[in-house]
């Protein structure tokens, strides 16, 4: 069944039309990757889907609930969470504290102000579980600003995972990573359970083709093509967009 449905979405900044009549469907369990050259509107699309930016036209539906027009914080409530292209963390807090915040967001006791957060055992357990799974457990006491870039990039994903989303929007999860880190991260993404649907923006074509079930090409704010990886790979026009005729490899 369709988990995320974007219909006729348009977004403009003053006279500049960044997204034009974009429609997109992501099925449950799918790994859907959005590609496109710089300036195609990919991040803006994410911002519009999650409500970070108000949209001019169209609708966004998650799990049969229409969320377009609602404030950004409601996205998590319907099971959608996201990461950012540029690390967007709590830099002066520790890794553990970062996760506490992420986990606390959906707890019924999030407004509690008379009991320390580290007395809530479920928060502690979930933190431990996630950190161990993502190999950051030994970093838990570190202030985030002191982590390596790759570790911060992982934490970026981890924070989004903490709310146990049905659909996760990853905005260039491997951007800026070393080749080794990229491989590791790709593996982690591949190993995510199918109960989490993924919508991913990615530039690195090796990563794209190793995770994607389906690819949407965005060009000049419009959906240029959408299809299975093989179709995209073989499409001459897509190569044209990217390289003016080169081969479809590292972007």
């Amino acid at each position, binding site marked *: 069944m369709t988990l995320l449905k974007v219909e006729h979405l348009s977004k403009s900044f003053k006279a500049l039309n960044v997204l034009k009549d974009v429609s997109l469907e992501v099925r449950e369990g799918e790994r859907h990757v959005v590609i496109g050259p710089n300036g195609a509107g990919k991040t803006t699309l994410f911002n519009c889907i*999650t409500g*970070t930016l108000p949209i001019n036209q169209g609708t966004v539906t998650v799990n049969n609930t229409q969320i377009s027009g609602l*404030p*950004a*914080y*409601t*996205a*998590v*409530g319907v099971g959608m*969470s*996201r990461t*950012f292209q540029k690390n*967007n*963390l*709590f*830099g*002066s*807090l*520790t890794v553990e*504290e970062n996760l*506490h*915040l*992420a986990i*606390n*967001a*959906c*707890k019924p*006791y*999030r*407004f*509690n*102000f*008379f*009991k*320390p*957060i*580290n007395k*809530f055992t479920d928060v502690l357990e979930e933190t431990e579980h996630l950190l161990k799974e993502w190999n950051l457990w030994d970093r838990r*006491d*570190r*202030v985030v600003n002191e982590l390596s870039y790759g570790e911060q990039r992982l934490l970026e994903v981890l*924070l*989004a995972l*903490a*709310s146990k989303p049905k659909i996760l929007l990853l905005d260039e999860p491997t951007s800026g990573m070393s080749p080794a880190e990229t491989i590791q991260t790709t593996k982690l993404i591949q190993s995510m359970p199918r109960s989490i649907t993924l919508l991913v923006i990615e530039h690195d074509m090796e990563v794209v083709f190793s995770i994607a079930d389906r690819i949407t090409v965005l060009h000049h704010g419009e959906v240029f093509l959408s299809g299975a990886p093989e179709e995209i790979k073989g499409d001459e026009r897509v190569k044209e967009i990217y390289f003016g005729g080169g081969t479809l490899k590292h972007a």
Partner: protein
Amino acid sequence: MKNRPLWLNLVLLVVLAVMPLLLSSYGLKLGSEVLIMAIFVMSLGLIIGFAGLVSLGHAAFFGAGAYTVTLIGDHLNNTYVLLLAAILVSGILAFISGLLFIRSSGAYFLMITLAFGQMLYAIAYKMEDITGGVDGKPVLATFDLGFGAIDSRLTFYYVTAVAFAASYFLLRVFISSPLGKSVRGIKENESRMTALGYNTRNYKLVVYTLSGMMAGFAGGLYSYFNEYISPDLLNWMFSGQALIMVIVGGVGTLLGPAIGAGFFVILQNYISSYTERWPIIMGLIFVAIVLYGRGGIIHIVSLIWNLLFRRKNRDQNMQHKEGTGIDSSKSGTSV
């Protein structure tokens, strides 16, 4: 290391309890004033240091508490009811004003809270029939917790000491609670908090309301302490002084603002007995702190502390700063 807050708290309690042995009668009075101001300034420190809401109208809530006790106290002499009323009235004021202001941030928030405080000031100033206008009003209610009227300075000192300790521990728990941590997260990175699913405006509103209630509580105590109130308690000058006390003491810490309050109340008392030019001296202190202060008294103290006792484990200190909230909040004020 981990129980540093614990023994710090114990030291605090002991100091509060032993103080009267060292103080003269006048010193006791000054001590009570310091503690009441400390509660007020801590409440402001909470929204500035932990939520990043820089208000220049916090005296509005202090004054509202003071006027509540005084005005209702003319008709009803029950300390519990009056203090509760002070907390409630300030809380409601804070809630309503917060509802309107909290979507503004940075300098805008500052100006709007300033104007709000001045509005209350002007009303208290102009409504002479009820408030006594510029001349102010004597406080008729007597402080009585059910054991007879408390009028000795020593007893009242202990009352304020208990009130201060209670407020401090409440805040200590608050900043480590889910709500307190969330507020801190919002200050640190609001956009991420929103992405994580937090309706950040609600969190700010709650902490703003709580802070207003605490300021109102301090104001209520102040009416009993001073036995006379005037519109100056609502004035932006007073708000500004409280803001200064927060900054002088150390933004982003709990005890810092309280220390700042003590520093200023005592200094003002001392200097005023020598010269009328206290405002100039205070102004010069402000300027000096901006140019040479580097984060307030508590930072200087903790720096010296670390130099003396913590040389070996500087690494751990870096983390520890986190836990106690002594940290980089200075740079985090956004516009």
